[in-house]
C-alpha cells in the first residue's frame, strides 16, 4: 500500500501575488509607517490597540480613533530562532516577539534581531528599525532592536 519507490511524485508551486485593500483604518496605519510613525486605534473605553485594530474584540465596536504609539516598546513574550528557515524573512538569528508599544494596551507581533537570545527577556525594551523602502506593509518596519 505504501510502495514509495514506484510512486509518482513531482514538485509544484502554489504561488500568487495577492492584492489586499486595506480599508480606512489600516490605510492610515500603513500611511503612518511611511512617515515612520506607528498608529494605534483607541476604543470608547480608552483601550489602545496597536497595530491599529479595526474592531474591539470585547465591545465589538468599530475603531477609528487613531493615536500614535511607540516606536519603543516592551517585549511581552518572544520565541527565539537560531536557524531561520527558508520562509523566514531574516536570515540571521532573531526572535518573533509580542511587543507592547509605548502608549498601547495590546502588543504587536514582529521580529527582534541584532542580539542574542540571552540578551532578551520579557520586559526588555526594543525600538523599531525601518525598512529602506516603504510598501504599505507591516514589513515597512524591518524589525525591532534592543534599546541602547
Amino acid at each position, binding site marked *: 500500500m505504501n510502495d514509495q519507490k514506484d510512486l509518482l511524485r513531482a514538485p509544484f508551486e502554489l504561488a500568487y501575488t495577492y492584492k489586499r485593500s486595506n480599508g480606512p483604518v489600516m490605510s492610515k496605519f500603513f500611511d503612518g509607517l511611511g512617515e515612520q510613525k506607528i498608529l494605534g486605534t483607541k476604543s470608547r473605553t480608552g483601550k489602545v490597540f496597536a497595530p491599529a485594530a479595526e474592531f474591539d474584540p470585547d465591545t465589538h465596536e468599530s475603531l477609528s480613533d487613531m493615536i500614535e504609539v511607540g516606536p519603543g516598546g516592551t517585549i511581552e*513574550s518572544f*520565541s527565539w530562532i537560531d536557524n531561520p528557515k527558508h520562509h523566514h524573512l531574516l536570515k540571521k538569528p532573531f526572535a518573533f516577539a509580542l511587543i507592547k508599544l509605548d502608549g498601547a494596551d495590546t502588543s504587536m507581533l514582529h521580529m527582534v534581531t541584532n542580539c542574542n537570545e540571552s540578551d532578551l527577556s520579557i520586559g526588555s525594551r526594543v525600538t523599531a528599525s525601518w525598512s529602506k523602502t516603504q510598501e504599505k506593509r507591516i514589513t515597512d518596519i524591518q524589525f525591532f532592536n534592543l534599546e541602547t
Partner: protein
Amino acid sequence: MKKVAVVGYAQHPILQNAGALNEVELIMPVVHQLFADLGICQDDIDFTCSGSCDYLQGAAFAFVEGLSAIQTNPPIKESHVEMDAAWAMYESMLKIQMGDADTALIYGFGKSSPGDLDSIISLQMDPYYISPLWPDRVSLAALQARVLLDQNIITRDQMLAAVIEARVNSKNNKNALITDLIDESEYLDNTMISSPLNKLDCPPISDGSSAMIIASEDKAYEFTDHPIWIEGIDHRIESSNLGSRNLSRSNTLQVSMGQLDLNNIKFDVAELHTQFSHELPFLKSLLNLADVPTNLSGGPLVGNVMMCAGLDAIGKTFESLKENQFKHGLAHATSGPCLQHNMLVHLEKQK
C-alpha cells in the same frame, strides 16, 4: 435536549508520508472499517460531514475529491467544515438534535507531508499584520510557552514529562506514528527550533484520516448496549488579535468549563488536543485534571493528523470509556494559534 451518543470510531494508522494514498484511498479504509465494526453501510447513515483543509495539500476542493470515497448513490445529506473534524462532529450532533438525522458519519483527513506546514500555518494569521512576517507554527506556540514558563504556570520539567509520557503512552495506541522512548538527556540535547520549544516539544508531521459515527438515543441502542453519551459539549473562540490575548489564561475555556459544569465531574480519563508539550500541563491545570489520566493514547506528540487530531481526541476518549471501567471522559479539540479556538466534550458511559 435530545441525547446523542458516539457509537463507533476508526483511525487510519498515522503515517509520516502517506504519499501512495490520495484522499479517497486514505478515507475509504476507515469508513469501511467503521461500517464493518457496526455491521452497517452508507444507507444506514442519515447525515455525513467531513473536516479538511485545502492548503495542506495545496489543492482547492480537497474535500470534493474526498467525497468520492463515500457512496453517494442515492445522493446523501452531506456537509463539510474547513476545520478539524471535531467540528464536523459538532455540526452532525446539531442535525441529530434537530431531528433531521438519527445517525451521522463524520470523517476527517489530512496530509501534512506534501507541503511545508510551518509556512502554510502562517497563512492562518491576520493577513495584513501577521502572516506577512511568516511566523511558523512552532514560534507562535513558543510565545505562549514562554509566557507560561515565565509566570511559573508550568515548568520545564512538566514539558519534559509530557514528552516522555507521550512516548510511554504510545504503546496504548496501535496507530501512533512515534513509539520510541526517550530519556531526559536526549530531550535536553535536542536543539531548539524556536526557543523555548525544541523538536521533541513539537508534534510530528503526520498524514492520516479518521471516522466516527454518532447516533440519536433511539438509534444508539441498535448499535450497542453501552453507548457513550455526549453529556456536554461547548466550543468558543478567542480574539484573533494575538497581542490582545492574555496567553497565560483562556477566558473561553473557563466559560466552557462552566457550561459543562466540569468542576463537579470526576473524570476518569481525558484526551487533550495539546500539540506542543507546554500545552498539556497548561490545560491540565486549567481544566483541573491534575489527577486525571490524560492522553493515554500519547496524544498529538506521537501523531498529529491535521484536521483529524481533535476528532481523534474525542475518538480516543470514546475508546477509553468503552474498553475500561471508566464513567466520565473529557475530550478537547483546538484550532488556531496558541489554543485560540477550543472545544470541550464530556463523554459519559452510563452503567
